[in-house]
Structures are given as C-alpha cells and as structure tokens.
C-alpha cells in the first residue's frame, strides 16, 4: 500500500514536502489530478501516479501544462476536486487558461500547485510566480513548513470551493525537497464522477459574458480578502517594536535568526501565509505597532512594495526595507546565515556566527559538472551530427537530459529559452541567416510544444534539420511517461502516439528514423538530411539505459575494453565522446567495466578498432 494512503490520523511521518502536498490532497478528497512533470514539483504527480493504480483517483501526465490545466478545468467544472501541478515556467505555459479560468470559476475545488525555483537549481530562470496571483486575481497560499505543505493544501481546496475559484499553492525548491515531520489527518472519501451543468452565460467567455465575470471576480477578491484577514497562517507573534515579515521557507530562516540573536522579546513577527489577497487591515495594524520593518522574501520585492503602498495610504512613515539589507537581493535563494546577518545589521545587534574555514589556500579543484550517463544514446546522436555538420553549424536545443550536450567536449547546443524553442527558433535562425541549422528536441518536449514549431517550419517553408531524440521516456525529471512511451512496463495502459506519424502528419516529407548506436547508418541519414532542401526530421530512437534498467527492459551487453596494444592513443574516444565509463590511468585510456553498458559507440569511433568486448 502506498505510504500516503496510511489511514492513521495523528500518526507522525517524515515526509518530503511534495509527499505532504499529495497527502493533503488525499485528505481533502481529491478526485482528479493532472500535471506536466517539472523539478521541483515532480514528486507530487509521482505519488498520484502510483496511488491511482491502487485507488479510483484519476491521474494523468498531460501533454503540457496548458493541457493539464484545461483537462483539470473540465473536471473541476464537473464538480470534482482537482489538483494540477507544475514548476514555475510551467505556469507560463498554463497562463492562458489560468487567466480566464479565473473569470469562469470552478465548481469542484481546484488547487494549482506552482513550484518556484530560487537559485535555478533545475530551471532556465528563477521567476517569482507570486505575480501570477496578482495578475490573475486568484488567491495564493504559501506554506512555510512541511506540515503546512499538507495542511494548507486541505485549506486551499476548501477556500477554492467557497470562492468558486482555483487557488494557487506556491512553493519553492527548499519546501518541495525538504523532508520534515508531518502529523497525518483523516483521509476523505471522494467521488469519481461529477456532472457538468450547462451554464453558457457563465462559462463561455465571450466579451458580453466576461464583462460581468470580471466584475464578479473583483467581488470575489473582496470575499477572499476577508478570509485572508482571518487566515490562520497569516500569523503575528511577539510584542516587540522591531517588525519582521517573511513568507515561505524564509519564515524559518527569520525565526531561527531571531532565536539565534536572542532578540525574541524585541521582535514582532509576521508570517505571511496567504500572500494574495494580502490581509491589508492586518498589515496596517501591524505597521502601526512597530518602529521599523524588515521584509524577508526571496526573489522580487513583492510584499515589500505592497507594504510600502499600504503604509503610504495610511500615513505611516516608518522604515520598511527588504532588498539591499545585508545580502538580501533579488538574486538567488536566501540562507539562514544571510538572513541572520541582515536582521542583525538592520536592527543593530551584534551578529553571532561561526567563522567558516578559510579556503583561500585551496588549489583549483577540478569541476564535477553533470554529464550524460554512460551509454546514453544522445552521446551517439550528437557524435553523428557533429561528424557531418561540424562545429560551425548552429544547434538550437531544448530542455531535457540532452541539454547536457552543451558541455564540452560534446558542445552541441547554441540556444535554449523554453520547452519547444529549439524548433521554432531553428525556423527563425535559418531564415535570418545563411548558416546551417540543426535543432535538437527530446521526445517528451516534442509533444509538449515542438509540434506547433514543426508545423510552422512546414507551412512557412523553413529549411533546416530537426533531430528528435527519442529515448522512450521523460528522462530528466524521473522517467515519467509521455504520449509515445510504451507504459506497459510501468504497469499502466496508455495509448501510444507515434512520433513518426505525427511528424509525417505535420507534412514533413524527409523523415529518417535511426538507431543512434549504429553510428555509420546514423551518419548516412544525417548526410541525407543535410542534402535535403527543406525541413528534414531525424528521429533518433533508443531507450534510455537507466529507464530500461528500471523497467527490466535492459538488454545486457558485454562491457567493452581498450586493447592497449592496438590502441595508438589517438584519444578520439575520450576527447570526442567523454563517456563517464572512460578514465585515464597513467596516461592510457581504460573503460570501467562496472559503468560500461556495452553500447559499442566508442568501438565504432576508434580509428584503430582497438575497443573490443571484454573477455571474461
């Protein structure tokens, strides 16, 4: 039985923040869940994926976040409690339905989990999605501890149904990927089928309808504001004259700072848990009760700006500051030491901190960047393309494991901004210059948002090559299924959509399907693609070895080894492939038999045929 189905109210478990959210959804009686995977949110749908195989919970990995939100909206309109999860840039993709779903509203409670990523541990930017609440008019809750990750999820569903609006639960990496003690509540039974009730003059957002809906949305804001004023996690503690305001994980850093500095009796602490609408009256009362305020919030000065505006409206002139105090900036995440120093600086107390060891005398340490795994088929595809197209060709790329191809010695990536951008930017670059262009995109990314760019390429007569790296899974985020994946080994029945059929269906005439481990044939296909005068697509198909191993589809092959007599030390293998199974020992190349999966790509690259299957 999945551990989150434990039916023991009051039991304390160590749960990952994401697990706590999933448990909260179960305690709220969630019936329907959709998502697109994205770090740091991916473990939430992972729980639902497994739980849906044990219960009647409906769960799906949707094609992208826009689709996930729209599918969820359909379910919520039928009266089912629905959860939709995504990372912060995912909300950009879902922003279109988000904005107008706010007008149409929902019948069954809907919670949209948005996971921000300060310090961009796994993202292409560190945007602050608190603005989405302000932009859409939807309420936003921000838990600060693992327990609150669970409890506020339950509260979010209730709030959503009271207002008839989706509620955004906003987290950050340091909440999603922290394990903390969580006291369980009661699991709630849920219905599996709802009913869509016809109401076109509320649900069909033509201008005449939306003019009324917008007015209603603003009225809902007033209702939500009243709730925010009384929200339990908008908590003020302490009687001191020094005001500290914090949200999310920063609440912990600020609390610990106050404790460490021994100033609890001087501080009045405001934890903001419902960050939209902000509890205006509560804030004004708070500002009137203190002499100065420090705002501890990562990324943008969202609360700082709002607090200042409220102060102005109410004739309050006390200092209110956040950014610029100590190391508090708009860049990257905060940490406990930084917050403690800022609190000490702002309120003029001596800061206690242990001096870190002096590392100035350390030699330069070699880096340990992540690398494509040993035997990764992307390595083979990149080798083949580079052999034909060279290093001057422009290589727009996309988001997935294959983005690691940006690192030397592979160096096969020139432009990435978001999911699907490789295809469309390839259209733009090939049109705007005379340079050769080869775009790379993964299988899941292709379905997510590559298809529209490909149709653009066909329709607008663009000329470049698109390589679809099909490793049979959504790899980087943890091997989730996507539309062309054979999900049977994962224990679920899903219909497969063929990438080749889609590509041909988009009107592409020049399509090559290759097996990347077979280098010569792959190189031939790349050459043919380069000759083609138009949009050409290469589908490079080979199962991700990690995924294959995990789903027992891995075909064991003998590891390879370097025959030191035949080897003339050209170093093509290690210089051009840099497979992590290779290493140098006393200036000769060796292959670690525990890491080598026997893909034989290096054997085909070696000009001396000196790499051969290991003899037992």
């Amino acid at each position, binding site marked *: 039985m999945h551990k989150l189905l434990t039916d023991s109210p009051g039991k*304390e478990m*160590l749960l990952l923040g994401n697990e706590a959210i999933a448990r909260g959804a179960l305690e709220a009686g969630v019936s329907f869940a959709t998502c697109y995977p994205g*770090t*740091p949110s991916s473990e939430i749908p992972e729980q639902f994926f497994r739980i849906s195989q044990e219960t009647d919970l409906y769960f799906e990995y949707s094609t992208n976040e826009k689709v996930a939100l729209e599918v969820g909206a359909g379910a919520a309109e039928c009266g089912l409690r629905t959860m939709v999860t995504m990372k912060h840039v995912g909300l950009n993709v879902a922003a279109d339905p988000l904005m107008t779903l706010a007008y149409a509203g929902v019948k069954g409670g809907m919670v949209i989990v948005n996971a921000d990523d300060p310090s961009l*541990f*796994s993202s292409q930017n560190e945007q602050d999605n608190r603005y989405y609440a302000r932009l859409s008019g939807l309420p936003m809750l921000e838990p600060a*501890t*693992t327990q609150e990750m669970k409890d506020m999820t339950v509260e979010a569903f209730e709030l959503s149904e009271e207002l008839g609006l989706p509620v955004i639960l906003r987290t950050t*990496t*340091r909440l999603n*990927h*922290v*394990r*903390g*003690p969580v006291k369980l509540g009661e699991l709630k039974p849920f219905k599996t089928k709802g009913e869509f009730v016809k109401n076109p003059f509320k649900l069909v957002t033509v201008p005449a309808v939306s003019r009324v809906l917008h007015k209603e949305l603003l009225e809902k804001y007033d209702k939500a504001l009243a709730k925010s004023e009384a929200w339990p996690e908008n908590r003020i503690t302490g009687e001191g004259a020094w005001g500290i305001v914090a949200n999310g*994980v920063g609440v*912990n*850093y600020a*609390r*610990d700072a106050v*404790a460490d500095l021994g100033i609890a009796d001087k501080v009045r602490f405001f934890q903001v848990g419902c960050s939209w609408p902000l509890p205006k009256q509560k804030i004004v009362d708070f500002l009137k009760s203190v002499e100065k305020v420090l705002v501890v919030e990562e990324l943008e000065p969202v609360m700082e700006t709002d607090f200042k505006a409220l102060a102005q409206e109410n004739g309050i002139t006390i200092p209110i500051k956040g950014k610029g105090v100590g190391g508090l900036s708009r860049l990257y995440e905060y*940490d*406990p*030491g*930084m917050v403690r120093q800022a609190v000490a600086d702002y309120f003029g107390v001596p800061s206690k*901190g*242990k*001096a*870190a*060891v*002096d*590392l100035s*005398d*350390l*030699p*330069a*340490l*070699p*880096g*340990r*960047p*992540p*690398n*494509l*795994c040993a035997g990764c088929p992307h390595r083979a595809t990149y080798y083949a393309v580079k052999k034909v197209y060279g290093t001057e060709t422009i290589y727009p790329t996309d988001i997935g*494991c294959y983005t*690691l191809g940006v690192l*030397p*010695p592979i160096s096969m990536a020139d432009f990435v901004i978001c999911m699907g951008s490789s295809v469309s930017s390839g259209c733009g670059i090939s049109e705007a210059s005379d340079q050769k262009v080869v775009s790379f995109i993964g299988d899941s990314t292709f379905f997510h948002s590559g298809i529209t760019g490909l149709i653009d390429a066909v329709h607008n007569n663009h000329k470049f090559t698109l390589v679809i790296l099909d490793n049979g899974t959504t790899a*980087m*985020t943890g091997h989730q299924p996507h539309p062309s994946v054979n999900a049977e080994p994962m224990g679920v029945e899903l219909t497969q959509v063929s990438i080749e059929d889609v590509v041909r269906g988009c009107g592409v005439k020049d399509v090559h399907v290759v097996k990347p481990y077979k280098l010569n044939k792959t190189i031939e296909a790349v050459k043919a693609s380069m000759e083609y005068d138009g949009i050409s697509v290469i589908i490079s198909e080979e199962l991700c070895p*990690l995924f294959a191993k995990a789903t027992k589809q891995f075909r064991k092959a003998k590891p390879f080894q370097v025959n030191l007599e035949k080897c003339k030390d050209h170093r093509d293998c*290690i*210089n051009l492939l*840099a497979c*992590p199974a*290779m*290493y*140098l020992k006393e200036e000769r190349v060796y292959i670690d038999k*525990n890491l080598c999966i026997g893909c034989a790509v290096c054997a085909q690259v070696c000009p001396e045929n000196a790499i051969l299957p290991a003899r037992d």
Partner: protein
Amino acid sequence: MDTKRCVFVAVGGQGNLLATNLLGQAALANGIPAVVSEIHGMAQRGGVVESAVLMGNVTSPIVSTGEADVLVGFEPLETLRTLGKCNRESLVITNLQPLPPFTVSIGQGVYPSVDEMLELISKKVSKVISLRGNDLAEEAGNALSLNMVMLGALIGSGAVGISADSMKEVISTSTKKAFLESNLKAFDLGLDAAR
C-alpha cells in the same frame, strides 16, 4: 538535544539522499525534531549531490557557510569542495577513495592527491575521521553500501545523539530486504572505523 547541523555531500549515485532520509527518520523515532533537505535532479548524471539533516530546535532546512557541525563526505574531492560549510570546531568524516570527475578523466583538470587534500582538511577543522569507505562496502558484500558505511561512521563518531541500535532499526524497516544483510554489515564496519 542541542541543534546539530549535518551536511552530506556525494557524487550522484553514491546514495547520500537515502542516508539522510534514514537519519531523519531515526531522529524522528527518537523524538528529536529534524528536517532533511536535498537537491534532486542531477544525481544520476554524475554531478554533486548535497543533502543536510538539521536536528533540534531549528526550522531552517539548509546549512549556511560555517554552520555545519558535521560534514560527511562520500568522496574526498567533494569533501574538500564543501568544506566552506564547516568552521574550526566542525567534525569532518570523509571517504578517502576518489571518484574522479569526467573532466579529470578527459584531461581537463588534475585530481589533487588525496594525502594533500586530507592534510588541508585536517589543518582547518579540529576533528577528522577518514576511512576507505569503498573497501569497507566491498567487505560488507555490496559496493553500493558506501552510504551505510558513512552513516555508520557518523553514528560511531558520537557526533549526533542517535544510537547505533536505533539507526539499525530504521535501516531494517526502511531499506530493501535484499540488501539488508550487507547494509547492516556496512553500517557496522563504518561504526567501528569511526570509534
């Protein structure tokens, strides 16, 4: 119990996330409040994985520079790279056996000598426990049990107020049965190496 901040650092695949998860569970089982933080994602792609367990009266999930009471390094280069988390009084527990990054393997960097690294570490912190963790894991019967060796060493050092029995109880209930025997043996070998 006093606040204890333990930082774990390893190369993706060495299993430090499991180790910190188990340590967090052991703390909870002993009634010690604990939070565990981890950075996911790059684990299996050979990059560096850092995790931390903070025990006692502290709610922040991460450890700032200079604030680690203990640094447990599964790989010597990474121990050195993460040393900034330590202060003069910190305890460093490190594996001595290198796993060179691919940048070194392809000749794009020089792996410092382990003796040199150990000497630098020993000069900067008051206590160092070093062990040949991979050898001990092999001795226990499973090369992948390095994480259990290191966990054993942490408990053996006495730096955190959790008993070996209590830790082994958690290992028994929370890890795969197939690896239980080698896991417990690896734990004991690490325990002895640290005492």
